[in-house]
């Protein structure tokens, strides 16, 4: 029974199980894209109908931190693909190294994001009674910051989950026999990590660039 999966599970072979898990992750990501899709739709509508306030909000975001974070995340995603490739070739040590680098970059992203949030809290940019932007554009700008905080928070939650998943992969690799499906796990987490990266690629222009000039 060397290449067979769990005899009580639904699979005849491990390969079958691996394929199926990858399919499941793709489907889950399709669902996720509609979650973020709904958010983007509402943002686009308000960026259009409340254009002035929205732009006022965009101008208050920190382009430097946002830009740096974008570069960090792209780099992290790219490095993770090296882990996937290494895992495919059974170079476990190299795979773990690359995965850990990717996770570390993810942590840097989260730290920078937290710093950015605390700065914004201090500047009273969180929607509420003492909101910093006043005048005709106040309502639209509050709306912008609602989306800003909700979207970046949701994205950060996904980042934390992703970092956790990568940590789990690395821990499993440390054990003597991490199981044959380890390579597939690396691949599946890679799908998820790229998706989180992709979401940021849409968030960045919507929250930092559109209407800045």
């Amino acid at each position, binding site marked *: 029974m060397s290449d067979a999966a769990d005899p009580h599970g*639904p699979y005849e072979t491990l390969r079958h199980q691996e394929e199926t898990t990858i399919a499941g992750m793709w489907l889950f990501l399709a669902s996720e894209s509609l979650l973020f899709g709904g958010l983007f739709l509402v943002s686009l509508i308000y960026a259009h109908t409340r254009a002035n306030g929205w732009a006022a909000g965009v101008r208050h975001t920190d382009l430097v931190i946002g830009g740096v974070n974008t570069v960090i995340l792209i780099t992290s995603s790219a490095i993770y693909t090296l882990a996937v490739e290494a895992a495919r070739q059974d170079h476990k040590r190299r795979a773990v190294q690359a995965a850990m680098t990717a996770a570390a970059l993810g942590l840097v992203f989260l730290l920078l994001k937290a710093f950015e949030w605390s700065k914004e809290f201090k500047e009273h940019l969180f929607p509420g009674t003492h909101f910093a932007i006043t005048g005709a554009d106040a309502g639209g700008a509050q*709306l912008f910051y609602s989306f800003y905080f909700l979207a970046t928070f949701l994205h950060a939650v996904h980042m934390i989950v992703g970092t956790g998943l990568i940590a789990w992969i690395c821990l499993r690799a440390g054990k003597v026999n991490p199981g044959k499906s380890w390579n597939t796990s690396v691949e599946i987490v890679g799908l998820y990590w790229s998706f989180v990266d992709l979401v940021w690629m849409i968030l960045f222009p919507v929250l930092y660039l559109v209407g800045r000039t």
Partner: protein
Amino acid sequence: MTETPASLFPERSYLWQDGTLRSWLLTTDHKRIALLYLVTITVFFATGSIGAALIRLQLIEPGGMILSDETYSRMFTMHGIVMVWLFLVPSIPVTFGNFLVPLMLGARDLAFPRLNLLSWYLFVASGLLVLYGLFRGGLETGWTFYTPLSTDYTQGRVLPVVAGVFLSGFSSIATGVNIIVSIHQLRAPGMTWYRMPLMLWALYATSVIFVLATPVLSITLLLLAFEHIFRVGVFDPALGGDPLLFQHLFWFYSHPAVYIMILPGMGVVSEIVSTFCHKPIFGYRFVAWSSISIAAIGFLVWGHHMFVAGTSLYAAIVFSMLSFLVSVPSAIKVFNWLGTMHGGSIRLDAPMLYAMGFIGLFTVGGLTGLFLASLASDVHLTQTYFVVAHFHYIMVGGMVSAYFGGLHYWWPKITGRMYPEMWGRIAAALIFFGFNLTFFPQFILGYEGMPRRYATYPEQFQVLNVLSSAGASILAVAYVLPLVYFTWSLFKGARAPGNPWAATGLEWQTSSPPPTENFARTPEVTSGPYDYATLDRLNRTAAEEAPHV
């Protein structure tokens, strides 16, 4: 692996293999999870029914019998929220879907057994949150959470209920992912797509909606909660938000969700009609693809909920036409069921009675839907009891009938016991009669202009309201009956053979109840679905050989 037929060892079935509570709560067996769900949604069905009973009690008198206006609003909201989110949406997919998908595919389990268990825990948590909100004061928004009702005007507990519904969405998504991936990946050797029973096609279509529509509801509810907590105008007009935007997003999920609440029922009816006519389903491929097209078109019709909300006329015309389009695949199903029954020798056991009830009531519900899909008559009928009657004919007359039909049909497979057939037929007839008495008068009430959601009404409507309430009390008795005799049958019912209905389908080729691993040997599929000719030939051969054993 042992080659001995598992049917010789009924005590080795999934039910009794390990009887500890712990083994049930940590199970990853799809059959046990189906039973966990069955018990859970029965509790929610009872809770929602209490709300319905109080509503019908209140409306016996024009001035209202027992409830204050506010309590009445909270009661119909409770009824709607519990019935839609905690019963109808999960109902057939999480019970029969969970139980049958692997059996019908010839697999040992769903693709992701642990995810399946997780979905149950999510569902229980979401149910507890909703019930907490409802019993700590409730809310008066209706099941749709429309703004500004859910923001400015509510005194109630919107947040825990919204959080609960939000959470239940993830349970649905998990179930949907599991069913879709299982159907793609776990079909037994020889089980091609066109050899699958129609139930699987229906569940596949339902799951597509679970996976692709539910997340839009999730994000909408998240925005609603954000608005509620931080007072920013996303949807609330008083804060500068757009209430129509909420309705667009809400119905983008909730119209497809209407098909979550009917497609699985159509799957059940297809199975039952074929079995009790002992004939293959007429136009199998059309019925299969009509499920997919109902799901697909369902994503494009949400605007018909907003004809009088101030959307543009052109949008309304397009949405109206698209809504009419849905009736085509729905009618294909009805005609093909009738075509199957035509000329067949129909056995009228309880499941078939429910299935026939479904066909009749769904047809009435579907045809009255056309009045609401066309702009001119909708302006007159919207917000009246006509709408209430229409969707109850679909949801209760259709889906709940199918649910009960399925329960009777697969009860022997699930429990290994036969229910008392006589009582089954009596309950089916009572449900049909009680249902029509409850809801048919509401069509007339609505046509005559009685608005929905009010705790009182003008005196001229009393006769029809009393009739409706009388029907509801019959319905209440009729729903308690199966609970009693099903429980009785668990202990005293006759032992069920593997295939009590002489049905096709892989689930009937294993013992009742099935062993934990479902099949002693992975089945090989060599012919199409509903192949009664082969089944009968095998049975004849078995009968001829029997004396020699």
